[in-house]
Every structure is written in C-alpha cells, then in structure tokens.
C-alpha cells in the first residue's frame, strides 16, 4: 500500500446475520481510494453497499481485515480523530425532538469546539449549496424526505472532512435536485467522495471510479470508464442494459421486457 491512499481496505471481509442465516457480503476486499477521487459503489439490493459504508465510517465492526485512513488504521484512531477524517450521510434520520434545520447542520461543527467563529458562515454555505437556505429556520421534523436528505448532506459538508461517505444520497431527490446534489459532490473541491447509488446514469455523472459489489462476496474496482458500461451493468444487476448515445456520455438504458404486453389477461 502506498501512503498516498486516502482510504484503503486491506483484505476486508463483511458478513451479516448469525449462524444459519449468515451471509458473506464482501470477501478479501483490497481497495484504495486516492485523494480527490469520486467512487461510486454499485450493486443489487443486499449486496452490502450500506454495510461497507458503515464499516468505512467506523460505525460497524469489520469481520476480517482492516480499514486504513491515510496510513493509520481506523481502529487506532479515536472518535475525535475519526471525525476529522470522514463524514457519513446515511438515509436514516432520527429526529425524536424538534430542532431547526440550522441547529441540525450546526451539530457538524462539534469537532471545532465552542469558539468556532466560522460556524455560521460554513453552515449558511452548506445549506445554500444544497438548496436548503430557505429551510434554515424550519423544524427538521416538518421536512419532506427529500429536503431532510439534502439537510443531511449539507450537515456532512459542514463537517469539513477530506472524505465524504454517502449512502444513496439522491434516493429521495426529484430530477432537478438529483443533478444539483451530484454536481455539488463533483465540485467538492478536492474532497474524496465514496457514494452508493442505484441509478447507473447518476453514477456515470458522478464517478471517476466504481466499485461493483455482486452480493456473492466478489467485487471489482476500477476507473468509471471501464466499469460503468452496459455490459458490466447487465451482468451486475442481472437485467439487460444498452448504451444510447447522449449529448455527453452515452446514456445507459434499462431494456426490461414490457410486462404490460406479456401479462396474461
């Protein structure tokens, strides 16, 4: 392993379930993410995308192998040190008590201590970047899921970490906001992005690299141009994809048979 890797997995294995229902999601994953790269994790439901992101964030134990941040094993970094390296966006939010959107984004500034003079400006920028500035005084519990998701992403931005881990960051976004979020992630000046996505065309828009998890413990990693192809996507999801020329990169179209015509009456 070279010291240049921002995040690396060495011989990593992840399993879920106990005894009988035990399932190996990922086996011996050796993977390096370098500074400034944008990785998209793709795979069918239950392939282990969220589990891998949770392990990378240190909120879930690994079953074998290790995760390394800039040469230091994650397990050797204390909670505060980890918070300077990475931020995590999940797609589950817990808002049992009311709080304003602004106050919620401010929690990301915890690691900067009490005398954090830049907090207000950073929070304002993060909210504006994700089209949430108008929501600042609103109660987080009153937001739609899409709005709440953008607030969560803004919160991760406000933590100002070199690495951003995002679990399906556009799952609740309308078309305009999907593009807004993806482009904001692309413009995240020098930050390293690791995001799981379900939309292969969103992946094409965001990724410099891709990690494909099959869910049968094997994986492949490499430049987006090599892996985000109709052929690979067809094999990964077990359903046909075809490339159509678009205005920029080719668009991958899902060629599913039309059930409406073949369905028995």
């Amino acid at each position, binding site marked *: 392993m070279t010291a240049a890797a921002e995040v690396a997995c060495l011989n990593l294995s992840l399993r879920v379930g106990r005894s009988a229902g035990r399932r190996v999601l990922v086996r011996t994953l050796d993977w390096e993410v370098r500074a400034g790269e944008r990785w998209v994790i793709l795979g069918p439901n239950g392939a282990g995308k969220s589990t891998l992101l949770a392990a990378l964030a240190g*909120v879930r134990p690994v079953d074998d192998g290790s995760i390394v941040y800039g040469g230091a094993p994650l397990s050797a970094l204390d*909670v505060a040190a980890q918070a300077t390296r990475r931020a995590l966006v999940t797609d589950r939010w817990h808002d049992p*008590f009311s709080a304003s959107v602004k106050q919620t984004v401010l929690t990301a500034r915890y690691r900067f201590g009490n005398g954090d003079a830049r907090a207000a400006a950073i929070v304002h920028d993060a909210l504006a970047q994700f089209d949430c500035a108008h929501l600042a005084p609103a109660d987080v519990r009153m937001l739609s899921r899409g709005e709440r998701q953008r607030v969560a992403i803004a919160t991760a931005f406000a933590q100002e970490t070199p690495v951003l881990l995002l679990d399906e960051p556009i799952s609740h976004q309308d078309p305009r906001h999907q593009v807004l979020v993806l482009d904001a992630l692309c413009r995240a000046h020098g930050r390293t992005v690791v995001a799981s996505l379900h939309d292969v065309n969103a992946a094409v828009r965001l990724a410099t690299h891709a990690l494909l998890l099959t869910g049968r413990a094997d994986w492949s990693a490499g430049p987006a141009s090599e892996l985000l192809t109709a052929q690979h996507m067809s094999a990964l999801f077990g359903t046909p994809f075809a490339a159509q020329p678009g205005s920029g990169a080719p668009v991958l179209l899902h060629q599913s048979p039309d059930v409406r015509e073949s369905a028995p009456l």
Partner: protein
Amino acid sequence: MTVPAFAAGSGRGRRYVIPALAATGVASIVLALMVGSVAAPWSEVIGALRGQRDDSVAAIVLDLRLPRALSAFAVGGLLALSGALLQALLRNPLADPYVLGISGGAAVAALIALAAGAALWVMQLASAAGALITLMLLALLARRSLFSRDLVAGDDAASGVLLTGVMIAALTAATLSLLLALAPEGRLRSMVFWLLGDLAGATDKTTAAVALLLLAVLAAIALVLARPLNLILRGDVAAFTQGVDVERIRRVLVVVAALATGCAVTLAGAIGFVGFVAPHITRRIVGNDQRLLLPAAALFGGALLVVADTIARTVVAPLQLPVGVLTALLGVPVFLWLLQQR
C-alpha cells in the same frame, strides 16, 4: 405538534430563562411556607427567615414547612433532571424514571431493607443501589441498542428500550405488591408511602440540604456533557461520526440519572411523572438545546413538586394526600395526550 424550534445561538429570551425559573422556584417555596393549616402571612414568613423565631408560627415555618419545601424542590429537580437525561439518552420523549421502573426498583430495595429492619441510612443506600441496579438491568436488556458496537443496528432498536423499561416497571410494581401483601398489618401505612411517593416524612433539614447539594452536583455533571448530548439526540451513528464518544458519555449520564432517581426515591418514595411532565413542559418553552433544557427542567421540576406538595397537603385539609397521587393524576393524562400526538 408545533413545538417552537429552539432559538439559534443568542436568542434574546435565552438568557432570561434560568433566572426566571430560579425566581419561580423561590416563589414556590415562599408560597409553601405561607400556606397550610396555620396561615403564615408574608411578613411573618420573612421575619421567620430572618431569624425572628418568637412565636409558634415561626417554628412551623422553619422546622416543618421549610425542610419539606426544600426537600420537595430537591426531589422534583432530581426527578426532572433524571427524566430529561433519560429522554435524551433513549431518544424518547416518553422516558421517565417512574415509567421505566427505576423508581420502582429503588422502592423495592428500600422496602426489602425496611422489612429486614435495617437502619435508615442503610435503607437510603439500598434505595440508591436499587435505582442503579434497575437501570443496569435495563441497559443489559437493551444493550443491543445502547451499547452495541454496531451503531446502525443500535439506532434501529432504540424504540424498544422504552417497552423493556415498562416491563421492568411492571415487575417492580408486582414485587412491591407482593411485599405489601406479606407485610404485617401495622407496617402497611408506612410501606404504602414508598409505592405512591409522599413528602410528609421529609422534614429533616440536613437531608434536605444534602439532597439540594446532590442536585447541584449532578446537574453540573450533566451540564458539562450537555453539548455532546445534543448530538446523541440525533442518533448514535450521527453523533459518533461527528466526533462524540457516545458510549462513554452514555455510561456517565446513565449513572447520573440513576443516582438522581435513587436519591429522590430515598427522600420521598416513588413519585411518578414529575420526571416526564417537567422536561416536557420546559421543552415547550426553551426548546431542545440540552445546555439550557437540563438546568431549566431541574428548576422547573423543583418548583412543580413544591407547588404539587403544597396542594396535596392543603386541598382536603386536615387530611394530607400523598403528593404521588397528585402527580400521577396530572401526569397520566399528559402522557397519554403526548402519545396521541406522535
């Protein structure tokens, strides 16, 4: 439910909340000193407090009402602090030391000590230990959500903790009933006290002072950890990734909550719902910033119990109601109403 979002940063009202609640607390205690079978007018109360103990009214005010009012304030404050902490730690606005069975556990331990003929201080120690053990039991049963290395699974299981606590409360209630059924006839009255909670016996000045001191110490510890607790409110995963040592802070605050409950039960038995109602009302006024909510809830809980106890001992005079009956009659509807809002 439209609860006002807490004022961001330097809201104008924020700085006046604590002084206003402290004044409310003092006012509630003065009221408690004035009201009773023998009415003590304002001037006599002030005179007695300034050391003019020349008549029987002054003796009643200083030797009976003052220690009882201070005890009530300490007990209310401790229960409210415990409730506010448990609500934040369990991320459930319905959490309360009584609902979770912690008060019941303390009462069971105290009753066993009482039945064994132990000295008063042993009984008080047993009560505190009972609270701690019950909360440990709860933490053990709910370890998957409270102390799991897999924080994602923990967040998902958090809602089950309250139900576990309710079952523990049912167990302690059954144990208390069993102890009452087995108790000799003559002891019954003094034992019912533990079941309902009553401040009639809390007229010892030293005990009241110690309880107030403990309230101050525990509130100070909680206040130091209020900032990370603000993050724990939003889930273990979020708090951990933002740099909070969730497990360490939860361990400390669980012990603080247990000690507060144990001390309150020692003094006044298992008074219910103060730990739930006081933080809830306070939250509607000051919002959810724990740095403000924890001290505000403690002050409000203290004032609330002083007023409740004053009503309890005067409303059907010359009879005195156990204050726990009053708080339960008030607390249960509020609890059910809040449940409907969810």
